[in-house]
């Protein structure tokens, strides 16, 4: 059983465990034993620990599906851009927008980040479009290519079971085209739009015209501009005014075809007074060739709206010698457009050979709130340069940054973040805590906070500490009968607890499991 499916079973189990096990118990006993909410949490978090036992030496998701891929010629030019757009039956404005981005991209240079070292990407040696060769988009699970279903089975996210999983609707993406969307009807009733981006461009062109590229303009940065030109697909979410989305929206991404750059584009709009929680989880098949991933996520929160965006990222990180692995160059940005709006990013980054990612918040509305919770774990030869930008523009805006870096092996892990308070942003508040944990003496942990403050009423505070997994801690746990590997897993999970608490339960479980998996062989 793979981790994901077991996690979901566990989610199931936990849910039942808490609700039914407790119901089944004599109420007196329940009150006697679990006399606080906290006890329940202890009971829950205990179960999470057991998941850590499901560990295996090799990358679990390392396999390639044998679905026939439809591929365009190698390389990129205006024709390819037009072909991508035509393939998706896009309206003219979209084709033009892509072309504008492409032309702009030609003038840009790939950024050279000081802390990241990787062989240059040859952009002429990539395929910019790949889709499962199934011309008729499936209307239901029955129509989905059985091979795809088997892929999901291997990944541990069997779609049949998903429908049973209360509260989770999944927009599953293999490579570039969405193949199945569940719970659509239920969401439709509430006026919620949750569909593949390609579908949204067809069905909701007004929304796309109005919002696409407004948070991350096509000129934003090298990878974002490339994405704007060639983005394949992604998710589109619109929550109408006053609606609280009743379930966690979820999308599993996956890179599949060899040499296929993955250019997801996601846009989430939470209209006035609405709420949505979105989960993004990644697994990728093992390859010896580096693969490029350059996604864009744009979030827009109107007045009183809240968006919670959670990610567990576990793309293939390369092998123990540092060969292979995904290059993950992602632009994620949220705009708190309205007063009292809130955007919260939570990420658990354990995968990819190279990660370059700064989920950000532009706090434009008065009293708007931005949050960033991050656990980034690197092992072997992985490199991560990740953090956030909190741009305070409105009055009385607040932001919180909790970053927990974990470095093991010969990896390098950097937090890079910006807190900017513009001159008109009265009474801005920020607190940042950026901790690093080192495992072994071959790795690096770095902290690069930038604070640019132009308003005297701002209160901005940054703290950072560095610690290691101490031999004394490991021995203490050993002496109580716990193996070294489990001990390290416990200590690391404890260290990152503040962030895991932000994740929905099934993600928290998965995240902790991934951490243990990613740390294998790093101690002892």
């Amino acid at each position, binding site marked *: 059983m793979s981790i994901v499916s077991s996690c979901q079973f566990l989610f199931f189990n936990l849910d039942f465990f808490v609700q039914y096990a407790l119901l089944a118990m004599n109420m007196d006993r329940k009150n006697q034993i679990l006399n606080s909410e906290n006890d329940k949490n202890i009971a829950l978090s205990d179960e999470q620990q057991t998941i850590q036992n499901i560990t295996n030496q090799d990358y679990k998701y390392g396999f390639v599906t044998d679905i026939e891929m439809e591929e365009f010629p190698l390389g990129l030019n205006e024709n390819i851009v037009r072909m991508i757009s035509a393939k998706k039956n896009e309206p003219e404005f979209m084709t033009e927008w892509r072309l504008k981005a492409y032309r702009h991209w030609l003038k840009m240079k790939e950024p050279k980040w000081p802390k990241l070292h990787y062989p240059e990407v040859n952009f002429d040696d990539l395929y910019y479009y790949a889709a499962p060769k199934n011309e008729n988009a499936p209307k239901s699970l029955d129509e989905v290519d059985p091979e795809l279903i088997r892929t999901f089975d291997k990944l541990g996210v069997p779609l049949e079971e998903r429908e049973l999983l209360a509260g989770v609707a999944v927009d599953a993406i293999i490579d570039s085209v969405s193949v199945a969307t569940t719970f659509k009807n239920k969401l439709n009733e509430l006026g919620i739009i949750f569909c593949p981006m390609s579908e949204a461009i067809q069905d909701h062109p007004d929304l796309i015209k109005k919002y696409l590229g407004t948070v991350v303009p096509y000129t934003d940065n090298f990878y974002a501009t490339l994405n704007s030109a060639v983005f394949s697909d992604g998710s589109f979410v619109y929550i109408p005014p006053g609606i609280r989305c009743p379930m966690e929206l979820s999308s599993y991404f996956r890179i599949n075809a060899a040499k296929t750059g993955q250019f997801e584009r996601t846009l989430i709009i939470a209209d006035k007074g609405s709420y949505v929680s979105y989960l993004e989880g990644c697994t990728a098949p093992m390859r010896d060739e580096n693969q490029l991933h350059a996604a864009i996520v744009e979030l827009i929160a109107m007045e009183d709206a809240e968006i919670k965006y959670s990610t567990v990222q576990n793309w293939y990180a390369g092998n123990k010698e540092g060969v292979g692995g995904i290059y993950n160059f992602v632009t994620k940005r949220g705009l708190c457009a309205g007063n009292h709006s809130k955007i919260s990013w939570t990420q658990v980054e354990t995968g990819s050979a190279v990660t370059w990612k700064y989920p950000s918040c532009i706090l434009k509305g008065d009293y708007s709130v931005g949050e960033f919770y991050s656990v980034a774990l690197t092992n072997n030869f992985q490199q991560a340069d990740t953090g956030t930008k909190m741009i305070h523009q409105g009055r009385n805006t607040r932001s919180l940054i909790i970053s927990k870096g974990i470095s093991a092996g010969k990896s390098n892990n950097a937090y890079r973040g910006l807190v900017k308070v513009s001159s008109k942003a009265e009474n801005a508040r920020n607190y940042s805590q950026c901790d690093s944990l080192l495992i072994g003496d071959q790795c690096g942990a*770095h902290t690069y*906070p930038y604070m*640019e403050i132009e308003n005297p009423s701002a209160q901005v505070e940054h*703290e950072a500490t*560095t610690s290691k997994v101490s031999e004394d801690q490991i021995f203490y746990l050993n002496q109580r009968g716990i193996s070294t590997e489990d001990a390290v897993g416990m200590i690391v999970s404890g260290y990152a607890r503040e962030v895991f608490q932000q994740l929905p339960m099934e993600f928290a479980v998965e995240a902790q499991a991934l951490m243990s998996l990613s740390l294998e062989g790093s101690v002892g």
Partner: protein
Amino acid sequence: MTEVSTNFKDCIQDQIHSGDDTDFALSPELRSSSLAILNEGIFPTRKDEEWRYTPLKDILGRKFEFISNDKLNPDLLVEHKKVVPDAQHIVFINGEYSAEFSDDLTQQANAGLAIKLMTDLDPTDRQKAENIIQNSKLSDNSIFQHIALGLSQSGLFIDATNDTEIAKPLHLLFLSSTAGSTSFSNPVNIIHIGQNSSLKIVEQFVSAQDAQAVTIPADYIHLNKGSSLDFYKLGLESEGTDHISNTAVELSESAELNMHQYLLGSRLTRSNSEITFVEPGAQAKLCGIFLGNKSQHLDIRTYMDHAQPNCTSDQSFRGIMNDRSRGVFNGMVLVREHAQNTDAHQSNKNLLLSRDARIDTKPQLEIFADDVKCTHGATIGELDEDALFYLQSRGISKVDAALMLTHAFASEITQEIQIDSLREYVQHKIANRLRHIQTTNA
């Protein structure tokens, strides 16, 4: 000797050809690589990470004129010497050593301390001095270091022998005095402290009220085993000046550095201090205040290189920015592989006192060893409302209360100054400046 140049870059080119080898502070061998960089003439831009927040437009746009040190009012010096009355005073005027106003170098005011002009070194001393420069590799290898190394025609070699506690502080006064024309000074000072010896140095940069000047000094300091140095730097030049300095310090085993910087002066101040632990078990304490008004730009950069195990560093810098001034703190703590048992702390706290003031702070950690204790913190904020109210509730006016709290904020640093007269002077200077703030804001 008056030369008129159109701008800063041309002025550098002129300087390259302005003397014989013997006129320069350093040997041709050492100067050659600096000259190559000067000939390229590339100045940092805001795309350079280390200069991200400090634009050089104004300094590069300056009109230049060089002038010898005439027209000096000696009373000015008398006042400045009082800052550290019981000291050996050495005076530079517009970048040139002034025998007239300095205590006689040949008369050793301090036993065990030899002070020589860089232009006047015997081969043994030159070797010793230039070795210290050669071993120092600044991480900020911008052109300014080379303006001092390649072009300096003045400076001191300060050499403290072994096992000696040098009692009298060394007071180095750098004065820019010309009005109406621009003076340019770029002294190179090399300081060598022998084993188990201790020394106190006060470097005071001042200018006449109406002076136009560019000061680009560089100090290279080597502390041998068990030695210690108290190093105070006062930046008090007037607003017609720009000041860009580099200080490189190497610490040997068990050596101890206490470095203070009080930067209140100049239109543009950029002070880069780089500390390298070249042997285990040393410690460095860096602290300072940067206090800006009008449209001053004050940039403090520190680079703490923990290259060896068991060393301790502690940095505490406070910025107070008023009017349209901008402050920059750019601090790096690097813990290299194998530098186990490092204990490094870095703190930067800032007060913004005006709507148009700005602070950019970047406290950074780069860590490659696991058994270390490293923390850093930075805050930016207003005065504590509760504290203000508390003082007001005791009958103190809001303006006075704010002044008291700002004072307290600064004095947590200044109280660490070990030379009484200096401490009083610095506190007095800060108080004066804050009083100005009070009146302009009222």
